[in-house]
Structures are given as structure tokens and as C-alpha cells.
């Protein structure tokens, strides 16, 4: 079975991620998800694709810590995170987070917390490729 946390070049299946989460416990009553995708427009420019760089070993380690912390903090039954690196074309998937809990509130709050923390703590960088040239992204709040 695929690991609960992964960093990969290829696209992922949301259905498979959710099925894996559901398969971890029949006590799950609520599943929240966050899907981040590549926008085709940013800072007034057309974006054709995004290139991701990562400190791979540390990024994976930080994602594992985030998952464990979220499970503890929100009392989740399970959580999964997958993040792509390499080149992602506009409209394609970047990151998928699933959180499962007995009730919806914990799942929804955990999902929001996980993507916010991921942006702060996981060493991944994105470069937008545009017809006017390439530029590394300055993080949004």
C-alpha cells in the first residue's frame, strides 16, 4: 500500500488517497480534503507551468512530522499528504491532503492546519514559468 505521506513527480489519484484513508478505520465519520492546483494566472501574468524544487529528505521528514502532529492535535483517525515536485502544468494537481476523524469539525480544521503548516515548514519552492520568463514565487500569506 502507498505510504501515507509522499513526494512524487507523477500525478496522484484523489480517489485512491481517499480510499486508503477510509480503509484505515471504519470509525471515520468525516473526511476533509484539500487539493492545491496550478493556476494559469499569477501576479498579472499567464503561467504555463510551475517547476518545483525540494530538499527531498527533509521535506519528506517534515511532512511525516506534520501528519503525526495533526493526528495528535486534532484526534484524527488518519491523515494522508501527497505533494508533487518537478514540472506541473497549469490546471494540474500539486498537493492533496486528506484528514479523517469521527466527526467533521476535526477533519476540516486539521486539513486547514496541515496546508497552512506545510507552507511554513516544508522545504519546497515553486518557480512559475511564464511567456515573459521564469520567476521564483514569493509566498502568499
Amino acid at each position: 500500500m502507498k505510504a501515507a505521506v509522499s513526494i512524487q513527480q507523477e500525478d496522484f489519484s484523489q480517489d485512491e488517497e481517499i480510499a486508503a484513508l477510509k480503509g484505515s478505520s471504519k470509525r471515520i465519520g468525516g473526511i476533509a480534503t484539500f487539493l492545491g492546483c496550478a493556476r494559469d494566472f499569477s501576479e498579472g501574468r499567464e503561467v504555463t507551468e510551475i517547476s518545483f524544487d525540494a530538499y527531498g529528505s527533509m521535506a519528506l521528514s517534515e511532512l511525516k512530522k506534520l501528519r503525526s502532529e495533526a493526528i495528535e492535535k486534532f484526534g484524527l483517525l488518519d491523515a494522508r499528504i501527497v505533494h508533487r515536485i518537478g514540472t506541473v502544468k497549469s490546471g494540474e494537481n500539486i498537493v492533496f491532503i486528506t484528514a479523517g476523524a469521527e466527526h467533521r469539525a476535526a477533519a476540516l480544521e486539521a486539513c486547514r492546519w496541515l496546508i497552512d503548516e506545510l507552507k511554513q515548514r516544508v522545504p519546497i519552492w515553486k518557480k512559475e514559468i511564464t511567456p515573459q520568463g521564469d520567476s521564483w514565487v514569493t509566498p502568499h500569506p
Partner: protein
Amino acid sequence: MIKVLFFGPIAAATGERDVSVAHVPGLTLGSLKEVLAAQYPEAMRLATMMAVNGEHVRDLSLPLADNSEVAFMARFSGG
């Protein structure tokens, strides 16, 4: 030797993915950053985050052991 890693915008600014720096007694994270800033001033201006052996570090006074892996990193933009 200290292995220094660069990623994303910092790798672009240095033109390197990694460099080796000789370890000297008393070397700290801050003194290593100063050494690198002399060679890569623009890159080190971007380096707001640091990691030693894959763990986040904020204390520039941290002593570095020989064979440490150090990353000077720009603010993250994943997700």
C-alpha cells in the same frame, strides 16, 4: 568538511546545488553563513531559513560538527 546544500531560488542565485566548506574548530552556523555571504551575497540575502542535518535551526550561534549537512534556504513556497 561541511556539505552546504542550495535549493530553489538560492541554487539559482549561486549557480550551485551544493558546495563543501572546510570545517574549522569553533565553526558556527553564523560564521559559515558569513563565509558564504562573501562568495554569494545575493543568495545569502535570500537565506531566511536554515537546516542542519535535515532539522530546522534558527540559532546562528549553533556550533557545527565536522561532516554536518547544512542548508541555507529561501522562504518556502510549496503547496
